């Protein structure tokens, strides 16, 4: 007896590896030519890179400074605090997988607690890293000692979290029926989007201390975060505006007809739908921000890239710029690629654009 699933096996499209080669690489004469040209290119490039990486390159600049690349000048006795943060995030990640994963239905009630846990993890992480004044267990670690990949992540995560509410407000402001608020939001968004990020960062470093009274001191990391937040908010506002425009007008009208007030319509009906639609572009924005944090090297913060600059400036690692900068590029690539891969999976899971 053949079952239906057996009967519906798809037909084989190509016959063995040779058939695949013929179909995908040599189906026309110019494709064959292109194949040989690409093979030549790959051979030359791979050979050059591999010969250099395995025989000529001196990787000791990377291996001896690995900890420096990861955390910068963070006090080495306090490294357990970073491990604690990572453990907390890993724990929350595991719990989220339980709550939303394949057996998610059984833990449905726990979802709310996991979300609260994520919200609390944010101040908890900052507290753990920063420490408390006058505490012996958690001695304070100034932000000037935060560095490397740690600082890169702190800058990116804090900035995206801070810029999100601002971006939503700006998007709502740009669609507002009140002309003053609409003009203000539009001006802000277009002004920020018209200038390079590095000028905004520069302005945050130079102008922020000038704007505030002389008694108020803002440290460099906070200034950079302010710059990133102001910059990213304008881009997030445009993403959210797209999401708001995608909510059908019938939703507004139905909500009004049910007697909801203007605020209730926004908070209960429109924003949940709009924000769900803009999760993928906002993840994209976060990846862009993660890469853009490297710009703080220009204004003198000790992020991953600036640590690399300092390492190659040391006399014992002179002339090892290729190794160090390639290593840094690979780190950025691994994290950005992993995030964009996850966001594509998320897009499929959320079914954005399918309904």
């Amino acid at each position, binding site marked *: 007896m053949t079952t239906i699933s057996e009967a519906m096996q798809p037909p084989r499209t190509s016959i063995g590896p040779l058939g695949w080669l013929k179909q*995908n*690489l040599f*189906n026309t004469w110019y*494709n064959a030519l*292109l*194949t040989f040209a*690409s*093979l030549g*290119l*790959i051979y030359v490039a791979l050979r050059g890179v591999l010969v250099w990486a395995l025989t000529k390159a001196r990787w000791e600049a990377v291996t001896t400074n690995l900890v420096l690349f990861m955390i910068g000048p963070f006090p080495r006795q306090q490294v357990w605090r970073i491990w604690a943060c990572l453990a907390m995030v890993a724990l929350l990640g595991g719990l989220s997988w339980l709550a939303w994963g394949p057996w998610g239905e059984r833990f449905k009630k726990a979802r709310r607690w996991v979300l609260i846990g994520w919200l609390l993890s944010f101040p908890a992480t900052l507290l753990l890293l920063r420490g408390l004044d006058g505490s012996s267990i958690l001695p304070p670690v100034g932000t000037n000692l935060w560095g490397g990949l740690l600082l890169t992540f702190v800058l990116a995560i804090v900035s995206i979290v801070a810029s999100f509410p601002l971006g939503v407000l700006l998007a709502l402001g740009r669609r507002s*029926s*009140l*002309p*003053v*608020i609409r003009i*203000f939001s539009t001006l802000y968004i277009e*002004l920020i*989007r*018209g*200038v*390079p*990020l*590095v*000028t905004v960062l*520069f*302005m945050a470093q*130079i*102008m922020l*201390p*000038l*704007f*505030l*009274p*002389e008694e108020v001191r803002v440290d460099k990391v906070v200034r950079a975060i302010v710059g990133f937040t102001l910059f990213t908010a304008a881009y997030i506002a445009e993403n959210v505006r797209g999401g708001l425009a995608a909510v059908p007008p019938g939703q507004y009208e139905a909500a009004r007809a049910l007697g909801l007030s203007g605020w209730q319509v926004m908070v209960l009906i429109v924003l949940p739908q709009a924000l769900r639609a803009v999760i993928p572009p906002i993840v994209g924005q976060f*990846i862009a921000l993660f*890469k*853009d944090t*490297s*710009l703080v*090297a*220009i204004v003198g913060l000790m992020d991953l*890239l600036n640590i*690399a*600059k300092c390492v*190659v400036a040391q006399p014992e690692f002179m002339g090892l*710029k*290729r190794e160090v*900068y*390639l290593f*840094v*590029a690979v780190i*950025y*690539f691994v994290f*950005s*690629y992993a995030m*964009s891969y996850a966001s594509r999976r998320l897009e499929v899971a959320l079914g954005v654009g399918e309904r």
Partner: protein
Amino acid sequence: MAQTSSVSTVSRRAVPPWRDVRVLKILSQIVFTALVIAVAGLLYSNMKRGLESRGLWGGFGFLRLEAGFDIGEGIAYDPSDSYARAFLVGVVNTLRVTAVGIALATIVGVMAGVARLSSNWLVNKLASVYIEGIRNTPLLVQLFVWYFAVIMKLPRIKQSKVLPGPIFISNRGVALPCPVPSDSFNLWRLYLLAALAAALTLGIARARGQQRMGRPPFSGIWVGAAFVGIAALGWFLVPGSPLVLDRPSLQGLNYRGGLSLTPEFTALLVGLVVYTGAFIAEVVRAGILAVPRGQIEAARALGLTESQILRLVIFPQALRVIIPPLTSQYLNLAKNSSLAIAIGFPDLFNVAGTIFNQTGRSLQVIVIIMASYLTMSLFTSLLMNIYNRRVQFVER
């Protein structure tokens, strides 16, 4: 009588002013404006006090002072020139790298985007490795790699690599042959003008004919042929050649003649082109994929050849999807050119940084930087919007 008056009072009192939407709207805008002005005023007065105490308050008069620092490359400039002139050098350098970068990035991007859609598996994968690899690393890191790890590691100028042309490549930059006008160029310019006039006349006649008859009276190739034909005729009629190729040569520790690019310019240009090219490739790919399959099948069914399908069916439809995101990539390239400061190319932002360090006029310098970039962004989007309007089909 009494009843009607009570009804009218009720309707008048139904919405007290503090719950009247119209009043609230106006009131909330007034409150918002007042708040913005108050915050801005506070920040302004703080800044004014801070700057005045350091004697740095004032207008743009400092621009007339002598700059006193050197700028590596660009239009004619001397350290004894004014700050305004230094700014101008920076602006021209930014425009130079942006214009060349946009042209080259478009070529690279279109090629990579088409390669990404190739039916050839190997070409397809090569293109996707390029696109994913470049898009997932920061531009600043790439600039460092290009400048410090590639160009600075090239052979010294004495051992320059020589490519046919001759093109010299060394850690002191690149020298290319470039055409320069000779004595007979002025004469040839007249022929060029005549060629332009002929092409314009034919073009207008073609457009008029198309309007009248619904189809062009002759192929558009003739317009180009008229221009090239008259220009070529002039080339042979004038004594000597109007443009001569100036070949670079190695003299001492410098390149003489030709077009020589500094290592900073080369690194910035290569970095921007490679980076933006990867983003443009994705834009091009999305544009081509946005053309419905039915269009291609219908065109094939009508008997169009593959090249006709590409030229007449896919390309015009893909273009209207491509233009808006392409515009924002061009703008990104212009803005990203400000990263030149990291490798020492004297662009607008770099020069402005030096001026700020010398004068301390933070407010004025930032106003100038922002105004310049905003002008450039607005101008580019204006041009691209005009072009966009031309390629969009009229919806029926």
